[in-house]
C-alpha cells in the first residue's frame, strides 16, 4: 500500500514535471526560436493552382489524380478539387512541425502530403485544428495548451489502424538546412500502443517521432524515388 502510494505520488510528480517542463520548454522555445511569432498571413499563402499542383506532387500521379485536394485560404483549408478515391492531398505549413522544431512558424516551409483514407479521417482534424489556432494568432504556448486540451477532451481523434501518408514531393521544402529532405512514407499510431518497429536503431530504415502534446507516434520510412519516378539522391536515402 505504502509502496503503491509512493509510486502514485512519484508518477504524479513525474507527470507534473513533464507537463510543466513541456510548457516551460515551449515558452523557452518562444524566446529563442528564429520564428517566435506568426509572420503576416500572406507569407503562408500560395497561388491556388500552384498549391493544388504542389499538394498532388506528394504522391505518384496514379494516386493523387483522384484525390481530394485542399488549399489554404485566409480562413483555413478549403476544398479545391473533389476526390474519388478517399485520399486527400494537402500542403501543410510549419505550424504542423513539432512545437520544439526551430522551423515552427517558418513561413517558407511547404510540406505536401497525400493522406490515405484512414489518415484523412484521423490526421486531418489535427491539421485543421492547428491551422485554426495558428491563423487565430495564438502563441506557441497557447497552441500547445489548446491541442493538449483537445486531445484530453477527445475532441481530436487518435490515428486509425492503417493511417499513413505519402511525402514524395521533390518540391517539398522543410528549411534552408534540410531543403527537400527525402521522399518518404509516414505511418501514425496512438502513443498508448507503444508500437515497436525497431525505429532509430543503427541500420534501421525506420525513423520515429514521438509528438507532444499530440499523443501520436509517427514512423517515417525513406523511399528511393520522388513521386515523379525520378531517383532521390542516394546520400539522402
Amino acid at each position: 500500500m505504502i509502496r503503491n502510494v509512493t509510486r502514485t505520488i512519484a508518477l504524479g510528480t513525474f507527470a507534473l514535471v513533464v507537463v510543466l517542463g513541456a510548457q516551460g520548454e515551449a515558452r523557452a522555445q518562444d524566446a529563442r526560436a528564429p520564428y517566435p511569432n506568426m509572420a503576416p498571413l500572406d507569407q503562408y499563402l500560395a497561388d491556388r493552382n500552384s498549391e493544388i499542383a504542389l499538394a498532388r506532387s506528394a504522391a505518384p500521379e496514379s494516386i493523387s489524380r483522384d484525390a481530394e485536394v485542399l488549399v489554404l485560404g485566409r480562413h483555413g483549408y478549403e476544398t479545391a478539387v473533389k476526390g474519388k478515391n478517399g485520399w486527400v492531398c494537402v500542403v501543410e505549413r510549419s505550424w504542423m512541425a513539432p512545437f520544439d522544431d526551430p522551423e515552427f512558424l517558418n513561413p517558407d516551409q511547404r510540406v505536401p502530403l497525400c493522406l490515405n483514407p484512414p489518415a484523412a479521417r484521423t490526421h486531418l482534424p489535427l491539421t485543421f485544428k492547428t491551422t485554426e489556432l495558428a491563423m487565430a494568432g495564438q502563441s506557441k504556448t497557447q497552441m500547445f495548451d489548446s491541442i493538449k486540451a483537445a486531445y484530453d477532451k477527445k475532441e481530436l481523434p487518435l490515428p486509425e489502424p492503417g493511417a499513413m501518408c505519402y511525402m514524395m514531393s521533390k518540391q517539398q521544402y522543410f528549411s534552408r538546412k534540410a531543403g527537400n529532405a527525402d521522399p518518404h512514407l509516414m505511418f501514425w499510431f496512438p502513443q498508448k500502443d507503444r508500437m515497436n518497429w525497431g525505429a532509430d536503431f543503427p541500420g534501421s530504415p525506420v525513423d520515429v517521432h514521438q509528438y507532444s502534446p499530440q499523443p501520436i507516434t509517427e514512423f517515417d520510412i525513406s523511399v528511393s524515388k520522388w513521386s515523379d519516378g525520378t531517383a532521390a539522391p542516394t546520400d539522402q536515402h
Partner: protein
Amino acid sequence: MNREIVNAIALRRLALVVVLGMAWQAQARDAKAPYPSMAPIEQYLMDRNAEIALARSAAPDSISRDAEVMVLGRHGYETAVQGKNGFVCVVERGWMNLFDNPEFWSPKVRGPICFNPPAARTVLPITYLRTKLVLAGKSKAEIKERMKAAIEKKELPVLETGAMSYMMSKQSYLTDNPVTYDGAHNLAHLMFYTPLMDSAVWGANMPKSPVYLNPQFEGQPEPIDVFMVLTGTWSDGTPAPLS
C-alpha cells in the same frame, strides 16, 4: 468488363511481376511443376549455428542481436536463443508461400525474417502451424484445409495493429529466378501486415508507388494482406537493388 477493371488487373499483374511474383509466374507457365511434393526433411534443415546467423541477418544487428531466434528442428521450430526486445527472428521455408506457388515445396527457399512484437504474437503462429503440419507429413491440400479450419475455429490469434517485419538479409533465397537486375534472389524490404482490405488504401501496386502488395496470404486462407516497402539497403548497411 469495363476499362477501369481491365486497368486495375493490368496494374496488379505488373506489380506482381516487379516483385517476388516474377519467378512464380514464369514458373507457372512451365508444364511440369519443379517441386511437386515435399523433399526429404533433411533438405529443409540447416546447421543450427548457420540458421541462427541467417535468421539474425534479416534485420540490422542493432535489432536482431537482442531478438529471440528460432531454428527449424525435426518437430518444428524451437527456441535457439532467448530474446530481450520482443522481436523474433526465424528462417521461413517454401511452405510459407501461397499454396499455389510452384516453389511451395522447394527445399532451397530460405526466408530470414525478424518479426516485431505484434507480428511475433499474431503472424508467427501461422508459420508455426503450417510448419507443424508440413512436418507431420500432411499434403498441401490437407495443410490448406487445416489452416482454414484453424482460422474458422479462432485457433490462430487475431492480427494485431502495427504488425511488421524486416526482410533485409543479403543471404536469403526466396525464389529460383533472379528478381533484381543484378541477379539476386531477394529484395531488401520491410513487410506490414493488415487485415484483408482494398490494397488501394495504401496505394499499393499503383504506378510509381513504393508500396507493393505481396502475394503471400491474401485470404488463401489466412485473412492477412502483406504490404512491402523496399529499403534500398541490406541489413549489413550495404546498398541493395531497388529494381
